[in-house]
């Protein structure tokens, strides 16, 4: 038995797997106290006394950053570098703004402190830290009333002694501390400082929230685990101290859920497409979850490994408008959940969802399983007025809104496929979120993607993903070692020792996670580059074998960048190690395929606009069976989503209930 709980802006989603049965549930989110909806949903599902793991995806860290509502945080730096956080990389966010703006730094100037010390690039102490300087520092921080402190000294990843001494003094005085040598022991001081500050800023908020939640959870409930941005989980206790690792908690779970369900249907090379009301998350899964450590969240770099998810501010709620040059646009302004699209009955802005309704792809009586009736007259009036300004009739304007919205999505999908060197024609599009399955066929056509998979419960896929997520911990350290040639015994020993140090911390923390040593999978890797380059390439180092390490780097460079430079000096920049504790994946109910005829699920027929109006059958997803075949044009409705099967596409229901929609005739 296991329960996944995903708290989103509008709904809190639940997926319960118990005795081979999968139950799905949605409860309105309770913004004043997220625990309310959490407990309500558990009660509704009869899962209060759940014995198995309880995995939680939370937006606490993200929202704390977006709303700038974190702890009153101070920063301690090396003397001369107090402004590192504000200077950043000295670039402005927008090239052509008359008065560009940047988000204010998370730590204001008055709370940035310096200590007189310096370590050089070889880890040698140039200027020792005066222990007597620490008590005035502690006093100043106390006087400033800070709730959390980030400490980031230059080159602390090589020699952490000074940072450790500062952190110890602060902790002894009762101040919560995030020290950079523990949070992210990697070079590039701005990114390390920013990551450490984010952790210091959000961890106290996360700590209070999780402690509160744990207190309210029934005593019998299983251990609470938290979804991280890297696609794995950690204990609540670990998340309280490392909240920066959870900034993409929900979206990461969606990718894991997409990879898991599509994998059950036999598809491994995926583009995930999660389109909601205000934003869309897309990610590339080339047979494995793909990570980046270059994320920027709410203007702050967070250099921890996260799934490589690209987010655009476009969704069903994106507002259609005419710009100054007379072009039709959609978004980035959104009607949000309140007032929502015009068809909800009160909004004065016409949105992508409204256009879908007018084109017949959504039905006024079948939205959210008929729980909410949509108003067609209001958006029709608004859209007609909009179209008349550019000389288009109602239906052309509605189709235009969809095309323009799709152009934005297509751009996002190109960013994570083509720009990452992947050919979309060899991938499967996994569509989920409330609006994903409405747009998926259009986008697949635009990008030449041959196949769309719509999982059984596209509206709660993140909650399901949490149950498929492994226990996962990432470790790294900058070493900047030139690769000797020939490699030699001494260097191999040095490398092995470096990994032993990383592993020592890892084994301890995996034990704290409750994963026994035999179950831990270790994935070492090296970040390497040609000496003088400023960009590192991750080279897997699975077998810890140094044999032909140089050759493997040249090959990896050639593959990724199109050229290599044999003979040029190479250096190892970072050691990396990922520890995995595999979980028992939830088994989804399977149904033996029956005949292709879907007539039993037919709700009726209506006219749906594609390039022209076409009579299209409408099916009810819940009544479709494995083996059923649906020839486009067709509409498939269900409680949490509507799927459009375009003309020229054919869908079939597979044994786990996923819809596999493919281009007809190949």
């Amino acid at each position: 038995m296991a329960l996944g709980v995903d708290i989103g802006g509008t709904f809190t989603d639940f997926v319960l797997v118990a005795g081979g049965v999968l139950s799905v549930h949605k409860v309105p989110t309770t913004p004043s106290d997220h625990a309310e909806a959490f407990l309500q949903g558990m009660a509704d599902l009869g899962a209060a006394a759940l014995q198995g793991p309880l995995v939680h995806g939370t937006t606490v860290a993200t929202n704390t950053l977006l709303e700038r509502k974190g702890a009153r945080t101070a920063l301690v730096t090396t003397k001369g570098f107090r402004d590192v956080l504000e200077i950043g990389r000295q670039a402005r966010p927008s090239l052509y703004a008359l008065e560009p703006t940047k988000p204010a730094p998370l730590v204001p100037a008055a709370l940035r402190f310096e200590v007189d010390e310096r370590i050089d690039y070889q880890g040698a102490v140039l200027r020792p830290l005066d222990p007597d300087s620490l008590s005035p520092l502690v006093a100043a921080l106390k006087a400033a009333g800070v709730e959390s402190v980030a400490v980031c000294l230059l080159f602390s990843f090589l020699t952490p002694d000074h940072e450790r001494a500062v952190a110890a003094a602060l902790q002894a005085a009762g101040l919560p501390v995030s020290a950079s040598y523990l949070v992210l022991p990697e070079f590039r001081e701005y990114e390390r400082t920013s990551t450490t500050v984010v952790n210091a800023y959000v961890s106290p908020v996360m700590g209070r929230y999780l402690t509160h939640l744990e207190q309210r959870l029934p005593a019998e409930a299983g251990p609470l685990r938290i979804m991280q941005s890297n696609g794995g989980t950690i204990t609540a206790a670990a998340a309280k101290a490392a909240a920066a690792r959870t900034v993409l908690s929900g979206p990461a779970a969606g990718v894991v859920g997409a990879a898991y369900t599509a994998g059950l249907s036999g598809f491994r090379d995926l583009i995930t497409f999660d389109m909601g009301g205000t934003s869309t998350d897309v990610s590339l899964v080339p047979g494995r979850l793909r990570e980046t450590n270059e994320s920027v969240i709410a203007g702050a770099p967070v250099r921890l490994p996260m799934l490589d998810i690209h987010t655009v501010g476009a969704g069903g709620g994106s507002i259609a408008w005419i710009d100054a040059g007379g072009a039709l646009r959609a978004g980035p302004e959104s009607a949000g959940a309140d007032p929502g699209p015009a068809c909800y009955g009160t909004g004065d802005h016409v949105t992508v969802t409204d256009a879908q309704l007018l084109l017949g792809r959504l039905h006024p009586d079948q939205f959210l399983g008929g729980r909410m009736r949509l108003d067609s007259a209001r958006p029709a009036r608004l859209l007609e007025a909009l179209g008349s300004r550019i000389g288009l009739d109602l239906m052309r304007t509605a189709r235009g809104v969809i095309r323009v919205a799709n152009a934005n999505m297509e751009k996002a999908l190109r960013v994570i496929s083509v720009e990452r060197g992947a050919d979309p024609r060899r991938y499967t599009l996994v569509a989920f979120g409330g609006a994903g399955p409405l747009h998926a066929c259009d986008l697949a056509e635009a990008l030449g993607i041959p196949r769309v998979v719509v999982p059984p419960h596209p509206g709660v896929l993140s909650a399901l993903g949490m149950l498929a997520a492994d226990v996962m911990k990432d470790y790294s350290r900058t070493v900047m070692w030139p690769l000797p040639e020939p490699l030699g015994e001494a260097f191999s020993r040095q490398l092995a020792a470096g990994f032993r140090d990383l592993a020592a911390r890892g084994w301890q923390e995996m034990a704290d996670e409750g994963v026994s040593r035999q179950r831990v999978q270790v994935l070492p890797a090296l970040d390497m580059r040609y000496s003088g380059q400023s960009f590192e390439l991750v080279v897997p180092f699975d077998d810890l074998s140094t044999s032909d390490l140089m050759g493997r780097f040249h090959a990896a460079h050639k593959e990724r960048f199109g050229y290599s430079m044999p003979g040029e000096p190479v250096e190892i920049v970072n050691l990396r190690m990922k520890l995995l504790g595999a979980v028992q994946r939830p088994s989804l109910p399977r149904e033996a395929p029956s005949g292709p005829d879907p007539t039993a699920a037919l709700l009726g027929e209506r006219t749906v606009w594609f390039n022209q109006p076409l009579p299209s059958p409408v099916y009810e997803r819940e009544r479709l069976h494995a083996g059923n075949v649906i020839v486009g044009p067709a509409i498939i409705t269900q409680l949490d989503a509507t799927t459009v099967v375009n003309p020229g596409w054919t869908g079939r229901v597979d044994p786990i209930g996923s819809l596999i929609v493919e281009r007809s005739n190949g």
Partner: protein
Amino acid sequence: MPLDPIELTVFANLFASVAEEMGVTLGRAAYSPNIKERRDFSCAVFDAEGRMAAQAAHIPVHLGAMPHSVRVARERHSFGPGDLVIFNDPYLGGTHLPDVTMVSPVFTPIDGAEVLLGFLATRAHQSDIGGMTAGSMPVSTELYQEGLIIPPLKLLEAGRPNQSLLELIYRNVRTPRERAGDFAAQMAAHRTGEDRLREIAVRYGPAKVVEAFDAVMAYTEAATRMALRAVPAGTYEFEDRLDDDGVSDEPVVIRVAVTIADGELTADFTGSAPERLGSINAVLAVTQSATYYVVRCLTGDEVPVNDGCFRPVRVVAPEGSVLNPRPPRAVVAGNVETSQRVTDVLFGALAKALPGRIPAASYGTMSNLTIGGEDPYRGRPFAYYETIAGGMGAGPLADGLSAVHAHMTNTLNTPVEALEFTYPFRVAEYSIRPDSGGAGTHSGGDGVRRVYDFLCPGSVTLLTDRRRYPPFGLLGGAPGATGRNVIEQRGGDAETLPGKITRRVAAGDRLTIETPGGGGWGAA
């Protein structure tokens, strides 16, 4: 048939993504930190007549200069499939020598024949292209000192590389392997762009693509004209100056008369200083770029960048002036320093027309620093180049940002830890310079203080400005503080250095650079 308002958005997105995908390829595959980390490059797509259809710019100074390059390349060469032209000649389509430009055609099959669909161009700042100092950003007096001059030449002919040309180039630069990596990256970007544009032609048909080129340009032109119509008609004048040209102390006057009439803007720089011996001469392409940048700030980020941005704009700069010099004048600082002053005078003039919209002057200098020499610790020569941010001018809405790049550049800094891993000097301080922004209703942003300790002998080249004449405030706002360059020899006194100089340094010397703050807006 013209494009409808829907196709307009769809194609504007498509063309922009071609340029952006080229940029991703170039940025990813480049070898040198200058391209990869500082992002000092741009990519653009042109139609068959050489009109720009889309640009992915990280660096505004490239904005209006790329169309020159394509025009010159087309004038000097006929293009077949697989051809690619390379050049950096500032007097033939370039800007300054480190910016190496490549131009290639895109053909698409129509009825069995390969037909010209358009052109692609990339420009990347190479961290060394030869010349009198490492890093090729010298205090020079003629173009020949600034590096190897490459006129437009075919680097690829029907896909075959011209090895002789490459060998000649590599023999004339200090870091040939780095150049090879960066050139490979630039060519890879051209292949990406070619694949993408051909794909679009297959999907929509070449005729539609040609129509769409026209339509997105017309659209941008209309939006630009509309933005200019919102500016009250009239002629507005402004004058400012560069401190000096690095050779004599005489200030360099930059003067403009901006005329707004009927949705068009004319920037007449008549009255600006005659061309000078020092390297602050800005070739016409740079002067135009700065002007287009200012107009684009009025139009807004939303409108796609293409030829339509340029059509309602006219730039007059008399030949032989510092803003339209003749060969073989030195030009390397024109691109980085004079271009900033050109934006200052344009905004100064426009502030008279739009007092409620235009911010005060920003720090107005890229504070270019090159450090080079022999690294005794690593046993190799080194050349390090960076630009240092300053304070932005305050505006009617808010205080100016501190420690950020403004106007014609937006390159990133090099992390102190990255720099110390690689070069024989340390950074002792990198901070915001307090109270350097001009006071006002809104105060100007503060400049930066950056302090370097040298660990071995070497040479330092500074191309900096606003060390004498501060960035102006507006509507009663105070000017920003001027910048300062100070050297302290080990055990000696501190000495203020001129703004533009090359000088030897010894181990133990300390260089402090303080960059200017931005001007204030409104009486305090």
